[in-house]
């Protein structure tokens, strides 16, 4: 990875940023132009993400380190590409393109600056995945959050605004916690670079380390809010279900961002050394609580949107718990689960809108947003043009069934493989002769219960939606709306069939992660390029 | 000698200004009306500015001057907005 490909690492951040900047110059009425710019940028992003993923895939445990501003590692900001971030980037890009295409049918026209905010959201998410610096992480978190506020409110309407208010309030509080955590860590460790921090932790004296741990714990709360751990998660189902369909689709990645960071930081900072295993128990119990709450919520929800929202919690709970157990093979199963559940939930959120459109629920939401209050400055969203889907109900039904299967972890789609991968590592051939612990039993039972809850809830909802509607009007569904959904679902099928290579990738990733010194060495040894001004090599280190 | 004089003068001046600020903030708290509070805020701004200049003298550095200048030049914007809100019920018509 030399020459120009090296600069590709930063591309996932810059492409959306530049696209967003260009979009600002395009008048709101030129909707097609805006859509094209956004689409092209996202397609390029997918291309870049695939390239980076392939690079990571080919090189075992390679770390790509990008020194921003050509400053040596602990001083400047670094971007780090490793297996995990490459994976998350790809996942983001895939989900993004699906959501974007979906939005082109109608949603992108119901409010101002949809595409700009969409691109900036991608920038924030990608930045958070790539960065190797705690405070920079905060900044990208905020970029992501700010854009998500905008997107959540996209389309306005009482439901969204109320959900948005809660979402924003909670996340503002979270941001403050984030700041407290980061500053405590800086104050005690004297660095912000994650790799440097990991390297310094063993050398920190006792009482300073305690404070550092307090900081890390506070930081953890901030991420857990994003990841949706009980009891910090009540905003999540409401917010996600209130968001417009494509937005909710891309939001599926956001809660995983919290998980990602927890995974990254626990593995890197608390993988070994005196603070090893810090907070793991807490994660396990938090995961259990979240999982239980998610299960209950899935069961208790009538609206599909909330079912989906609680499914996010279920998946978060599962992941948190597995991360708390923190065992190599289990974690790689968890990664597979993460990918699978993101794709599923994203597809499901978009599907819900299509399905409910037949019941006039979606139409009502749209109508609310179009309340005649634009006094002319708001162009009426043009009647959507495009090809409507033939055999709509059959396809919607199939997609719905696929989602149900995925959510409940039934075969043959990737939901099953993912759950199997985790469980197998805990109590199957991955752990021969090791008697399952109480945590493992609990997790197994809960995983089963969650599948069951999803099954019950989804059949209930599916039956109500598809089979009992008395004069079921067939919704008008455009090809570009259903294709993204099918695309994401097809990916889960691919993930099932290619589970072997996928698991290989996850295993490699986790192996690299569980050996923090690889990451630390890669970052601290990254050499600056000589010859700018009078700057030289690793001076000052 | 001159150092001591200035040192003492600065210390006393700072205390006096702090006292002024404290008194002003009592009015801010007591009201009775919004306009009293707003004038209080304005006075607080002015006193704070004086305090900064005094602090500058005490430290012998000019770099704190800009903060004072910002207060002097722009501090009134907030109070103007408050006043206008009081009068008209909205800030920008």
């Amino acid at each position, binding site marked *: 990875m030399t020459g120009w490909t090296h600069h590709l690492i930063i591309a996932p951040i810059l492409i959306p940023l530049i696209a967003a900047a260009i979009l600002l110059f395009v008048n709101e009425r030129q909707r097609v132009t805006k859509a094209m710019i956004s689409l092209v940028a996202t397609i390029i992003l997918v291309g870049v993400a695939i390239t980076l993923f392939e690079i990571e895939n080919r090189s075992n445990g390679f770390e790509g380190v990008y020194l921003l501003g050509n400053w040596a590692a602990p001083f400047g900001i670094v971007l780090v590409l490793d297996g995990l971030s490459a994976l998350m980037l790809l996942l983001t890009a895939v989900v993004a393109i699906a959501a974007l295409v979906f939005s082109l049918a109608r949603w992108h026209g119901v409010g101002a600056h949809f595409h700009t905010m969409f691109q900036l959201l991608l920038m924030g998410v990608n930045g958070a995945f790539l960065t190797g610096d705690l405070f920079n992480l905060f900044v990208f978190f905020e970029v992501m959050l700010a854009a998500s506020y905008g997107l959540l409110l996209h389309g306005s309407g009482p439901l969204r605004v109320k959900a948005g208010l809660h979402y924003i309030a909670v996340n503002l509080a979270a941001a403050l916690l984030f700041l407290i955590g980061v500053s405590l860590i800086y104050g005690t460790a004297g660095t912000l670079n994650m790799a440097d921090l990991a390297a310094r932790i063993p050398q920190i004296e006792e009482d300073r380390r305690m404070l550092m741990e307090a900081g890390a714990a506070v930081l953890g709360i901030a991420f857990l809010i994003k990841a949706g751990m009980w009891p910090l998660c009540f905003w999540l189902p409401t917010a996600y279900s209130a968001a417009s369909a494509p937005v909710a689709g891309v939001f599926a990645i956001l809660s995983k961002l919290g998980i990602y960071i927890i995974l990254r930081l626990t593995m890197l900072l608390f993988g070994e050394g005196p603070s090893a295993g810090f907070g793991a128990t807490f994660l396990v119990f938090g995961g259990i609580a979240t999982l239980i709450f998610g299960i209950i919520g899935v069961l208790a929800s009538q609206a599909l949107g909330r079912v989906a929202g609680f499914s996010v919690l279920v998946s978060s709970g599962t992941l948190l718990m597995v991360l708390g157990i923190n065992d190599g093979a289990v974690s790689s199963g968890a990664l597979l689960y993460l990918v699978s559940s993101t794709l599923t939930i994203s597809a499901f959120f978009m599907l819900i809108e299509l399905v409910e459109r037949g019941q006039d629920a979606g139409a009502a939401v749209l109508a609310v947003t179009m309340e005649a209050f634009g006094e002319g400055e708001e162009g009426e969203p043009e009647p959507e043009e495009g090809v409507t889907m033939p055999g709509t109900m059959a396809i919607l039904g199939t997609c719905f069934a696929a989602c149900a299967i995925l959510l409940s972890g039934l075969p043959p789609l990737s939901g099953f493989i993912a759950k199997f991968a985790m469980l197998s590592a805990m109590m199957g051939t991955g752990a021969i002769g090791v008697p399952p612990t109480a945590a493992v039993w609990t997790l197994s039972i809960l995983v089963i219960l969650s599948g069951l809850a999803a099954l019950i809830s989804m059949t209930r909802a599916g039956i109500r939606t598809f089979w009992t509607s008395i004069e079921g009007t067939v919704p008008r569904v455009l090809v570009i709306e259903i294709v993204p959904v099918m695309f994401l679902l097809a990916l889960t099928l691919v993930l099932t069939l290619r589970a072997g290579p996928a698991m290989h990738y996850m295993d490699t990733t986790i192996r690299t992660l569980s050996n923090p010194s690889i990451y630390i060495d890669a970052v601290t040894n990254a050499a600056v390029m000589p010859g700018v001004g009078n700057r030289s090599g690793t001076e000052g280190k | 000698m001159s150092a001591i004089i200035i040192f003492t003068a600065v210390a006393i001046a700072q205390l006096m200004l702090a006292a002024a600020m404290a008194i002003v903030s009592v009015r801010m708290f007591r009201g009775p009306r919004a306009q009293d509070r707003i004038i209080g805020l304005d006075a607080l701004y002015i006193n704070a500015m004086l305090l900064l200049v005094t602090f500058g*003298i005490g430290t012998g550095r000019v770099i704190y001057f800009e903060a004072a200048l910002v207060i002097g030049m722009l501090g009134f914007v907030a109070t*103007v907005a408050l006043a206008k809100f009081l009068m008209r019920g909205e800030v920008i018509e």
Partner: protein
Amino acid sequence: MIQPAADIPLAVAIGVAFFLLLGASLALIGAIGFLRLQSFYERIHAPTLGTSWGIGGVMVASMLYFSFSLQKPVLHELLIGLFVTVTTPVTFLLLARAALYRDRTEGKNGVPGGIGKAAGERVGEEPVDPP
């Protein structure tokens, strides 16, 4: 915490101290007046002590001090004085006008130029006749 002042002539130091204390005490007196005076219209006069020679004193002190300690004319304090002088009236004018309006609608404080019946009815108090 305060850095020892640079070596400057004693006379200048005394001048600096004088102006400094003058400014600060005027500000303090203004503050006291602001607290003690009875009606709003009286109180409005008090802080102007601070904004006029209160600032003036401190500014002169600062200019004197820095001009001598840095060995070059330092006059930018003038700007502060100027801006404060120019901007304070804006606030005061607007506020006083708001207070007038409010007193008139409520018919309090013996404010001249009371208002017509309509507003009086609205607020539910007897309008006060203009003197």
